[in-house]
């Protein structure tokens, strides 16, 4: 047995944390995307019901949110630690390093996880401010579903995505999410050592599918809303 502090301060330990938190976040994204599919429903009722149900969890929701926040924080902190260690490990870089190809998974995306990660971090802050802490019921964003008055989250979403700039911002960020997941998904398995030669390739391919699915799944929402709700697209 090794003290946990020591285990998780080793380069391997940090990658366990990174991988495990990453896996949890992928799981969250899948659930989040499934929830967001309600946005494709014609009038915002489905979304608003879904949101109201979540709110109804009360303390449970808070616990989930805190858990999620901690996972994200852990992912970010270990990311910076890992990056810092690696920078220290090579104080002087090469003149013009080049990948050797073959089995290498070194691409602009996989080498720059920290950059795509930072973009996603910034996105996250904006996204939470915009929708989690956006216009509230007190500010008149209410609607009635099945006779009950609920928060009209749908209106908040629509008001954002009828603006081309917000659509562009969300679409752009989701492209970064795609790149992050492209390497991250497979990488989590490798970091945790739960991989073997038979599964390595399928998992890597699955990573591509998941990256595409999640990135496009999310980025189509603002586009869909833009074209269905704003006068500019389809009147």
């Amino acid at each position, binding site marked *: *047995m*090794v*003290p946990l502090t*020591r*285990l998780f301060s*080793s*380069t*391997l*330990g*940090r*990658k*366990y944390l990174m991988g495990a938190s990453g896996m949890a976040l992928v799981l969250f994204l899948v659930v989040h995307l499934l929830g967001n599919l309600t946005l494709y429903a014609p009038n915002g009722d489905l979304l608003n019901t879904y949101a109201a149900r979540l709110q109804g969890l009360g303390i449970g929701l808070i616990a989930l949110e805190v858990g999620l926040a901690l996972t994200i924080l852990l992912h970010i902190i270990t990311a910076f630690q*890992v990056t810092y*260690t*690696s*920078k*220290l*490990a*090579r*104080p*002087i*870089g*090469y*003149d*013009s*390093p*080049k*990948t*050797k*190809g*073959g*089995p*290498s*998974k*070194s691409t602009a995306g*996989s*080498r720059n*996880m920290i950059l795509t990660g930072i973009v996603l971090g910034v996105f996250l802050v904006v996204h939470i401010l915009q929708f989690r802490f956006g216009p509230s019921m007190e500010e008149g964003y209410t609607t009635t579903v099945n006779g009950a008055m609920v928060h009209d989250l749908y209106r908040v979403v629509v008001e954002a995505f009828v603006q081309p700039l917000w659509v562009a911002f969300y679409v752009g960020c989701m492209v970064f999410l795609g790149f992050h997941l492209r*390497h991250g998904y*497979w*990488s989590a398995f*490798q*970091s*945790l*050592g*739960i*991989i*073997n*030669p038979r599964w*390595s390739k399928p998992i890597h391919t699955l990573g591509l599918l998941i990256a595409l699915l999640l990135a496009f799944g999310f980025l189509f929402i603002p586009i869909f809303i833009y074209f269905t709700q704003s006068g500019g697209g389809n009147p």
Partner: protein
Amino acid sequence: MSASNSKTMNVRLKIWRQEGPSAPGAFEEYSLSGILVDMSFLEMLDTLNEKLIHEGKRPVEFESDCREGICGTCSLMVQGQAHGPVRGATTCQLYMRSFQDGELITIEPWRAKAFPILRDLITDRRAFDRIQMAGGYTGAKTGPHADANAILIPKDIADRAMDAAACIGCGACVAACPNASASLFTSAKVTQFALLPQGHADRKRRVIRMVDQMDKEGFGSCSNLQECEAACPKKISIQNIAIMKQEYLKAAISADFRAGLGSADGGA
């Protein structure tokens, strides 16, 4: 017949020169003409050095020994790639025909904090020895042992252990890794002994100590880019890294492992 034998080429070289470990370094450019295309890359450098000596200049210091790809001594970053552009080869197995006539070839030492530069293109790779020292052995002492055939090892396991054991300790994995991580080197040894029954008695102690030492040396963290495997002259798989991660986690959380791990350990 050996038609290409007498064909020659010209090269321009951009080589890292550095007097000593703490001296500043810089690139210097050289040109060579009449280089045979069938010359090995190191023979080309030999030719350069002979020329430099005749010109009264200090030759470029680089290391090599067996010149057949097994000792792991040669260690050059050529055109931004560890051991140059050819996969599955060491620098000494690189030939001039892999380059264009008149090409500008950049040659650098391995770059990592854990591999300080001694002079020019020579780095001190003793950090690898210290990782090995921390646990890269079975602990069997010289003396009488059970008959060799008393331990049966399935052929597939023996073959996989051999795949891992093929590491030549050249450091290309560290050099090629964007994070200067030594995970491939360390994991190859861990895996060899994790697979073989002879290594089972001290497998937990081994992996914990070797990983600790790897971290202490100042190598970076593995980002699963697999660039190490691409650069490895023996094509050692990053599957070994996955195995090391399993081994480390298992050892770290194992209740019946009470580490007498030396001073860095802080007890069990």
